[in-house]
């Protein structure tokens, strides 16, 4: 987003990307509309964690780019090495934060308030909605604010079952809010053609990816953007006054170091990568890393909480397969947080994502058929002619739930430089220290309770509920892939890394426009807020340049 805004304002922008160039429209790299039988492994996830059609080069492991984890703690760090990064494969769930989400401490005493509020960000959320496109509905909900939405798609069959089941328990269900174009927003991007494969990155640019929707238009608008790909930034370089002078990067092609000079450095490498670059940018003026006089870079790392579940719904057996229900990628309906924390044993909340339906079969389809037989009172296992009937009768009868919520930002969860280990490019790597606390575990239990209750309301059978021994299914930190908080913003330079305009307190020509600046995560996904704050920071940069302050 910063590239687009700064280039549109007439500035020269060098984009330094650690992975290769990527364009979702390139037939050579495209996986959209491929069939499982186009691959000898039928879509299995051997090379890509979310299956081989997923459009992310890199997952929780990246060849040649290790990280370490403090024993006894856990963190899984996702990286997508390609132009546009993980926006090429993300779920496109595009939720604004609400007023309460910016004021966590005021709300319940936990964590810290942001130095800004909803009113500061609202104009930018509005602009992001209009520039990028997001479907949804205005529901006048206090903490899930209205926006400028495209109309949502109609619910699928299992989503009607979910809606009925959730509402019976008083859990609200509304159309989902996702950045796919159900309707044209300009003449440069295509409209959704409902293949359900946004995770493969859309070749007609009908979903939001940073490359196709921001970088490419920025290149067209003024020709001011120069891309440096396969370039791993090692550090931000500084002068004798401690001001940033540019970056040094290692070319992945020849493993040699190169330098780029810049008036302003904007980091958008992901919360942990940006923290890593700053911590590795040591100099006489900045002995413990650039912008780190507070010693807080890397601290307050937090991911969304997540617990997942699955249900078998007998009333969804023996589906009529005469129609195509791929729809948009992901869900057409979801449940925003509804709980009253005064009555609960954990702070903050979560939303529920729902999946199911008659999707494209890929590797793993039809596994453990026998387990379903048991649920409907048939003998498990077996073989022969009957397998066909069984596979077909269960097709589309599974509904899945994903609770995605807010964990608390605490100083004790952090990443730091591990000086003993370098990556293939000689750059010291990150070491993670992260433990969930009891409140996140209790939240996960509440998610499981909700899923089970909704399942019963749907006349279904809840499958494999994880118990206390498995932290109620609470995913390890990093698995929800919403890393935020490592360079948090604030008014006090002693307790924050950037000011409220994403500018380092210590160095006025360095900005961070990824989720590192988040003070807290909210029970929303982070992308829409990253985009809004990045736009806001870009406006501030342009303004400050005009006033010759930087």
């Amino acid at each position, binding site marked *: 987003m910063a590239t687009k805004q700064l280039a549109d304002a007439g500035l020269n922008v060098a984009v330094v990307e650690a992975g290769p160039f990527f364009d979702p429209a390139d037939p050579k790299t495209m996986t959209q509309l491929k069939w499982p039988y186009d691959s000898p492994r*039928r879509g299995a996830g051997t090379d890509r964690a979310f299956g081989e059609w997923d459009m992310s080069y890199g997952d929780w492991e990246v060849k040649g780019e290790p990280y370490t984890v403090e024993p006894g703690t856990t963190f899984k760090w996702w990286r997508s090495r390609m132009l546009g990064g993980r926006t090429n494969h993300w779920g496109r769930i595009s939720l604004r934060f609400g007023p309460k989400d910016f004021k966590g401490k005021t709300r319940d005493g936990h964590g810290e308030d942001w130095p800004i509020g909803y009113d500061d960000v609202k104009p930018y959320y509005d602009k992001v909605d209009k520039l990028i496109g997001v479907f949804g509905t205005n529901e006048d909900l206090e903490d899930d604010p209205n926006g400028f939405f495209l109309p949502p798609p109609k619910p699928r069959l299992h989503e009607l079952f979910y809606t009925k089941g959730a509402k019976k328990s008083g859990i609200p269900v509304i159309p989902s809010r996702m950045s796919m174009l159900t309707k044209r927003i300009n003449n440069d991007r295509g409209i959704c053609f409902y293949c359900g494969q946004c995770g493969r990155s859309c070749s007609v640019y009908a979903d939001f990816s940073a490359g196709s929707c921001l970088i490419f238009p920025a290149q067209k608008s003024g020709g001011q953007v120069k891309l440096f790909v396969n370039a791993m930034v090692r550090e931000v370089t500084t002068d004798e006054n401690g001001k940033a002078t540019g970056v040094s990067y290692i070319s992945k092609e020849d493993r040699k170091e190169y330098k780029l000079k810049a008036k302003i450095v904007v980091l958008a490498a992901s919360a942990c990568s940006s923290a890593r670059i700053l911590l590795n940018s040591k100099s006489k003026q900045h002995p413990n890393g650039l912008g780190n006089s507070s010693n807080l870079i890397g601290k307050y790392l937090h991911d969304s909480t997540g617990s997942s579940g699955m249900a078998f719904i007998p009333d969804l057996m023996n589906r009529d397969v005469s129609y195509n229900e791929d729809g948009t990628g992901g869900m057409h309906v979801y449940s925003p947080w509804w709980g009253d924390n005064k009555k609960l044993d954990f702070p903050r909340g979560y939303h529920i994502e729902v999946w199911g339906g008659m999707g494209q079969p*890929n590797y793993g389809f*039809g596994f453990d058929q026998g387990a379903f037989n048991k649920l409907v009172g048939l003998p498990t296992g077996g073989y022969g002619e009957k397998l066909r009937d069984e596979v077909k009768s269960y097709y589309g009868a599974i509904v899945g739930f994903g609770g995605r919520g807010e964990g608390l930002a605490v100083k004790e969860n952090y990443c730091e430089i591990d000086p003993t280990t370098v990556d293939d490019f000689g750059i010291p790597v990150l070491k993670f220290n992260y433990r969930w606390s009891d409140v996140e575990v209790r939240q996960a239990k509440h998610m499981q309770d909700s899923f089970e209750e909704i399942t019963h309301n749907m006349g279904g059978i809840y499958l494999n509920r994880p118990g206390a021994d498995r932290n109620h299914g609470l995913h390890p930190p990093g698995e929800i892939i919403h890393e935020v908080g490592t360079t948090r913003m604030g008014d006090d330079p002693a307790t924050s890394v950037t000011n409220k305009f994403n500018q380092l307190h210590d160095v006025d020509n360095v900005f961070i426009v990824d989720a590192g600046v988040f003070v807290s995560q909210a029970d929303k996904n982070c992308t829409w807020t990253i985009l809004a704050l990045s736009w806001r920071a870009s406006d501030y940069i342009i303004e400050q340049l005009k006033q010759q302050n930087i």
Partner: protein
Amino acid sequence: MDRRKSIQTMILGAGASALAFHGCKTEDKPLDETLTAAENTNYFGRTPDELERIEKLNAEQLFNEHELETIAVLSTVILPPKAPHGGPLEADVPEFIEFIGKDMPDMKNTLLGGLMWMDHKSNTDFNTEFKSATLEQQKQICDQICHHDDDIPLDDQPLEIQFFALMRNLVVTGYYTSKVGIADLGYKGNQPNVWDGVPQEVLDKHGVAYDPEWIAKCIDQSTRNTVATWDDEGNLLT
């Protein structure tokens, strides 16, 4: 001859062709033509590193001729071919299992050991290899290992039980991820279309209905090509 063809030739040449389904579909489309079509799709969005690994795996051989024939025979016992969408051989299931056994080396010993168990059992009981036993004899062997106790983790059960469960998974997934299997399943997606909700008769069949208030907010697909504009309150004007 490339590997795909050589595997098909081995299986079909070894008499397993009797197990292949000879319905109108396959007669319409000779095997060679199917293979040529498949060969043209070998570029499927892989990165250079990923392609290199696939080529490396393709150059290796996991199963010998006898084992591939046994897999072919067993897969058609597990999922017999049926008109009009054939069975595991039309779905290239043996080729798929050969590849996946190399791609996921954890299953290698289960697969190899399981095949040996099948032959040993067949030799002991019927004095012939599994692939050459009669269908009745093959079923007698399978019947002893096809129902496992769900309450005990599969990993804690004897190898032949694990093997059969794994083979059943691979045969079913291999078939239903193939062109013929997807046709058998009836999946209608993976193509451009305009989603406009669940057909009324399907809603009726499952006893659910759309809420008119909700539907009123959804996209009117006749307006999808009109560029969106809003008033200041976020109400869509177009």
